[in-house]
């Protein structure tokens, strides 16, 4: 690597050529404050928070985009720099809705933190006109409050990175606001509900739609039996909300917390994932044998499904007709489990805890009501669960480790890795290989399709057939692959798509890490590792070896793909407009 010599605040450093002043300073142990910067997503030098002095330069420069060069002398802490940072913050505050005490982002707000760090003592130093700031409560998954928007464009860039690009800066100057084309509400445009914009937002301008009160009301209703399920990616991230290191698996404490919050049963969505594998592997084998639509594309990710419906309506037939694990688990709670336990399904409130906000949309889709009632009644995100735990004042770190309730708490390692990109496909291959070849393969690891890169492909020999697979995460990657499939330029058999970059571990409902962490740490890899470690430690690592899965099919009166399974566990899609 080419290196250059620079000085930062008078000290000499050798740093990689081509790096920015921000990166070089970080290596030297000096953080330069940023607001609009989000590595690889938004690098536009717009907010002027990161201004530093460079010897010989005419004016202050933006460290986040300014490259280092040989002999450069940088000063990050001069009175001029301090004054500039303060002024930038004070001007932002002059048009900011400063209701920090009741803001959902209080404590995780990057603007709030910088004001504290920089010693802002008067939040009303500049007074003047304040724009009204539009609010958008139209969707099921998020809320926009532009009175708290600092126009950093991180949400816009995140949306563009997802190839959705339905939000942007409209009008100019003082009137500039982030919104949709022709000032339409977000629910009118082709937003896929992924929530990546929420995770990108440094302030409280974008937050998930909070459904915690609905859950609390259900728990406190003596006539209701409230059953909760949690997705694999939740356990890999929830601990971050309580100060634990990224990648800590808190499954046991999470289960204990859910019980103490008053849920009657605590189930694992992983059981639903095992069922998904049974159905999806069967569907794949059926399509291969009977000349069905190939490639079969996974349908676990509701943001991805909505993207396909809006942007590739011609390919909705390629989607697996399987419901997502959340919906399968929900459907089985209100049918099989209710019947087994003699519970009136209408008394059940089925709650899911998801790394995802698109799940709030998914539960309202058509054809997601096996018992004639919604499969899942309320879906909350990892962040909302953390909020409930905080409201109940549970000391998370001191909770014991507990196990899921047995009926739908038994699951395999195959299901656990559903939370990471490549995991669904690996799980499907484990089952397809065994079932088709009639053996119990000892090697269950498909390493070629692991890892956080956005596009992976491999060819596996299964029962004498070369199965060509592709794995994409992040909708920009999905878009590239889909356009090839649409043009007939790709001949894959199975394609796994996860909407969020890196998969569900990096979902739009996960704990929010500030840019200062997110830009320099591979969060998705650390969280995914927690899941792969759990898989490796499990005795059962293949979905078809889950004994409760067999119990469930016995009740349905047939094997995977049987008539009753289709009634309960499969769904339909619609074609939507892009514009």
């Amino acid at each position, binding site marked *: 690597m080419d290196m250059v010599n620079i000085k930062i605040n008078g000290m000499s450093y050798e740093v990689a050529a081509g790096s920015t002043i921000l990166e070089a300073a970080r290596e030297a142990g000096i953080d330069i404050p940023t607001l609009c910067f989000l590595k690889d997503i938004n690098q536009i030098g717009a907010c002027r928070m990161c201004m530093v002095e460079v010897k010989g330069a005419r004016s202050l420069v933006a460290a986040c985009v300014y490259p280092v060069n040989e002999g450069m002398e940088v000063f990050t802490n001069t009175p001029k720099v301090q004054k500039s940072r303060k002024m930038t913050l004070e001007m932002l505050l002059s048009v900011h809705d400063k209701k920090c005490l009741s803001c959902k982002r209080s404590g995780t707000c990057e603007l709030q933190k910088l004001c504290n760090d920089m010693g802002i003592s008067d939040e009303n130093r500049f007074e003047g006109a304040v724009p009204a700031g539009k609010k958008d409560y139209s969707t099921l998954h998020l809320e926009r409050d532009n009175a708290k928007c600092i126009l950093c464009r991180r949400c816009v860039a995140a949306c563009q990175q997802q190839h959705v690009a339905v939000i*942007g800066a409209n*009008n100019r100057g003082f*009137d500039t606001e982030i919104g949709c*084309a022709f000032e339409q509400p977000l629910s009118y445009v082709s937003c896929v509900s992924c929530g990546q914009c929420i995770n990108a937002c440094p302030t409280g301008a974008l937050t998930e739609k909070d459904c915690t009160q609905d859950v609390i009301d259900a728990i406190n209703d003596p006539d209701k039996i409230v059953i909760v399920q949690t997705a694999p990616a939740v356990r890999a991230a929830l601990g971050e909300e309580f100060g634990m290191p990224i990648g800590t698996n808190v499954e046991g404490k999470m289960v204990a917390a859910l019980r103490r919050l008053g849920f009657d049963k605590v189930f694992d969505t992983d059981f639903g994932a095992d069922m998904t594998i049974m159905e999806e592997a069967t569907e794949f084998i059926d399509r291969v044998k009977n000349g069905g639509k190939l490639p079969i594309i996974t349908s676990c990710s509701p943001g991805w499904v909505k993207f396909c419906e809006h942007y590739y309506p011609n390919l909705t037939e390629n989607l697996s007709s399987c419901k997502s694990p959340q919906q399968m688990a929900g459907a089985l709670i209100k049918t099989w489990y209710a019947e087994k336990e003699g519970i009136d399904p209408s008394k059940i409130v089925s709650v899911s805890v998801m790394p995802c906000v698109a799940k709030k949309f998914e539960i309202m889709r058509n054809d997601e009501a096996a018992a004639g009632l919604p499969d899942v009644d309320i879906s909350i995100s990892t962040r909302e669960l953390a909020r409930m735990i905080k409201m109940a004042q549970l000391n998370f770190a001191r909770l014991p480790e507990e196990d899921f309730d047995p009926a739908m708490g038994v699951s395999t390692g195959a299901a656990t890795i559903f939370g990471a990109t490549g995991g669904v496909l690996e799980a499907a291959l484990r089952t397809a290989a065994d079932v088709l070849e009639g053996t119990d393969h000892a090697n269950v690891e498909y390493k070629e399709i692991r890892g956080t890169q956005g596009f992976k492909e491999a060819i596996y020999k299964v029962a004498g057939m070369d199965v060509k697979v592709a794995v994409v995460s992040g909708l920009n990657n999905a878009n590239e692959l889909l356009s090839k499939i649409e043009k007939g330029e790709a001949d894959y058999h199975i394609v796994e798509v996860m909407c969020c970059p890196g998969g569900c571990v990096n979902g739009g409902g996960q704990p929010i890490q500030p840019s200062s962490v997110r830009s320099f740490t591979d969060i998705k890899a650390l969280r995914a590792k927690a899941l792969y470690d759990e898989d490796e430690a499990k005795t059962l690592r293949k979905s078809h070896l889950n004994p409760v899965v067999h119990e469930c099919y016995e009740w349905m009166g047939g094997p995977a793909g049987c008539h009753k399974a289709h009634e309960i566990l499969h769904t339909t899609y619609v074609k939507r407009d892009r*514009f």
Partner: protein
Amino acid sequence: MQKRISSIPFTDTPEQHQKLLDLLEKLKDEKGAVMPALQGAQEIYGYLPIEVQKEVARGLNVSLEEVYGVSTFYSQFSLTPKGKYNVSICLGTACYVKGADKVLDRLVAKLGIQPEECTPDGMFSLTACRCIGACGLAPVLTVNDDVYGRLVPEDVDKILAKYTA
């Protein structure tokens, strides 16, 4: 000022539509094609309603929001149709200090529309423009190519009457 969005129904002729499609076909592989596409589209239709912007987005394979963002950033683009008579009042410095704001108030009251809007019958549209270089006549307004200067608010009634007769 935020751009006003027209509520007047969009009308299109096959010739106009074909012209737009030809333009987009020509521009579709160019970098930064949104600006020239919108300029061309505005030449064809006189303004840029959602129907036209959707066609531009589809033709250039970009998002509608990107197109809309550009159309609301530049003051040359209009989201409202021009009337048969476009009344343009200069709000440049000279006109402004000579009372152009009062003339504008009168126009708004008489026409029943705000700047950047068009009357429902399609007769008049109203524009508040920057200096047109006729400061000696301040305050000044134009109706299409006709220029009226040294105005007082009461003059507005007579001027509009000429075009409604």
